[in-house]
């Protein structure tokens, strides 16, 4: 009995966790009239009563989506900016971070411990602490107000190195030694043992990375002054009587890529989170 009550509470909490998706979905499928009816108290000067929201739209329509997809070229630009920025960051992390993680996991070299400590400290730093440093170098390289200003510092983030490192360390050294005895050189070991053996870690880092970089707020807002360069995460249409519907629809469209990555990669996401825990 007691267990049942706890379970019901937990299920209710789970509903609260996922409610934003339902809420945005419902709003985005509502016709203009219906949505204004619900949101009226925040749309008029002297409000009476309170905002309401149905669980499901009474008269579902795709008009809001049509409007945002057909009539808002700036939305497309921002969506495309988000894709460009996110994919570029993840590609740099792949090319740069994977070998680095492999180096920390299986090689010994001078200052290894010191450098690794440094990487961990850096991954903990909030953006605001490194903001000025980033700015100084980006300004020097004449990159401020280009998307590279967001892409490059994030591409060299040390967080994915750390996640992948945890997975690479699990590859037994006997396999590597056997390959070396068979005459494999360092690159071959990396290509044929590290990459397949650590693929789980690489995917985990990419999933965590996608959710993070699809969501960039501070970096583009700080380093990109031209709104044409902004990613979708900075697209915040005012909720007015005219734009409420497209605000909901754009929120759903912005959510879809992240949700797809989440659903497809949830196992890897969990593994990636667990990798950051200390092994017993």
């Amino acid at each position, binding site marked *: 009995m007691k267990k049942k009550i706890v379970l019901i509470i937990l299920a209710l909490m789970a509903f609260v966790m996922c409610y934003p998706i339902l809420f945005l979905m419902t709003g985005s499928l509502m016709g203009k009239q219906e949505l204004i009816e619900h949101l009226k108290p925040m749309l008029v000067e002297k409000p009476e009563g309170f*905002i309401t929201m149905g669980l499901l739209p009474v008269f579902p329509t795709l008009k809001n989506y049509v409007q945002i997809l057909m009539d808002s070229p700036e939305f497309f630009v921002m969506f495309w900016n988000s894709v460009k920025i996110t994919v570029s960051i993840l590609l740099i992390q792949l090319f740069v971070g994977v070998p680095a993680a492999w180096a920390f996991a299986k090689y010994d070299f001078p200052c290894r411990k010191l450098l690794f400590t440094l*990487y961990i400290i850096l991954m903990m730093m909030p953006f605001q602490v490194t903001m*000025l440093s980033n700015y100084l170098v980006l300004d020097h390289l004449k990159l401020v107000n280009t998307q590279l200003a967001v892409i490059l510092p994030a591409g060299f983030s040390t967080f994915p190195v750390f996640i992948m490192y945890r997975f690479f360390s699990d590859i037994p050294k006997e396999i590597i030694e056997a390959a070396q005895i068979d005459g494999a050189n360092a690159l071959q070991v*990396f290509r044929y043992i590290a990459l397949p053996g650590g693929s789980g870690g690489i995917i985990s880092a990419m999933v965590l990375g996608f959710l993070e970089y699809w969501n960039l*707020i501070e970096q583009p807002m700080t380093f990109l002054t031209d709104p044409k360069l902004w990613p979708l995460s900075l697209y915040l249409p005012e909720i007015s009587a005219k734009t409420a519907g497209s605000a909901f629809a754009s929120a759903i469209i912005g959510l879809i890529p992240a949700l797809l990555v989440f659903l497809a990669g949830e196992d890897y996401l969990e593994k990636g989170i667990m990798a950051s825990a200390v092994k017993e």
Partner: protein
Amino acid sequence: MRSSRTNYTGILFLLPSLAGVLVFVLLPFADVIRRSFTEMPENKWAGIENYITVFQNTAFQMAAGNTVRFLTVCMPLLILSSLAISIFLNNQTRLGQLLKSAYLVPMAIPVASVVILWKVLFHQQGLLNGLLTAAGSATVDWMNSKYAFWVLVFSYVWKNIGYNIVLWMAGLSSIPASIYEAARVDGAGEWKIFTRITLPNLSKVFYTIVILSLLNSFKVFREAYLVAGNYPDESMYLLQHLFQNWYRELSLDKLSAAAVVIAVVITLLVLPIQKAFYLER
């Protein structure tokens, strides 16, 4: 591969990453440290002048106070609630997995999307006040009063509880079942088992959770900024707001000194944990 011959192969693998870190973070941060002891625009040595200015700045004191208050409220709240849920979910199989997935969903919801809900929920005439009125209590101006702070706490717990549940459950599942069985055979009660076996065995994962909760707590600025802009209610004015505002106002002396201070604080917090991350190869 710990032979002297391969000593430098590792460096080669690391080099591209290290070069980027040096160029984009370390070298410019050295310049920030230099700037923190320099008086601009005369560009002359200022000693700890900038640091004194920062610590005496009332906005800094308020933001630092709010940040500390935010951390001391939301971290224990998040860590304890996620532990309680994990312990319960740990005994459930299918349903536990499903609920865990549901708790992780907020990680995938972009801030810019959820902000619409926050605005509708916490508006003066919003959903929440509608519920409060229906329940017969007075309405609250959520975003423009001391309650703004609690909106931020809620937002943080909502976003991060799934992350922490995954970590706690990883810790719980690493405790061998045989220890529990032995304790039960010896007649230990559930509470005793919890305090004598479960908690001590979770100590390592606990430290990781504290550090990662701290790391993720810095990110509430995104919600705070998108909901309330550069100057939100004073109760939720965090160090992140202050840094962004100093950057926009080009108060670079103060910004560099404050960045050094926070970097030192975070380094001191992180150093004890990093030893635990070293693995044998």
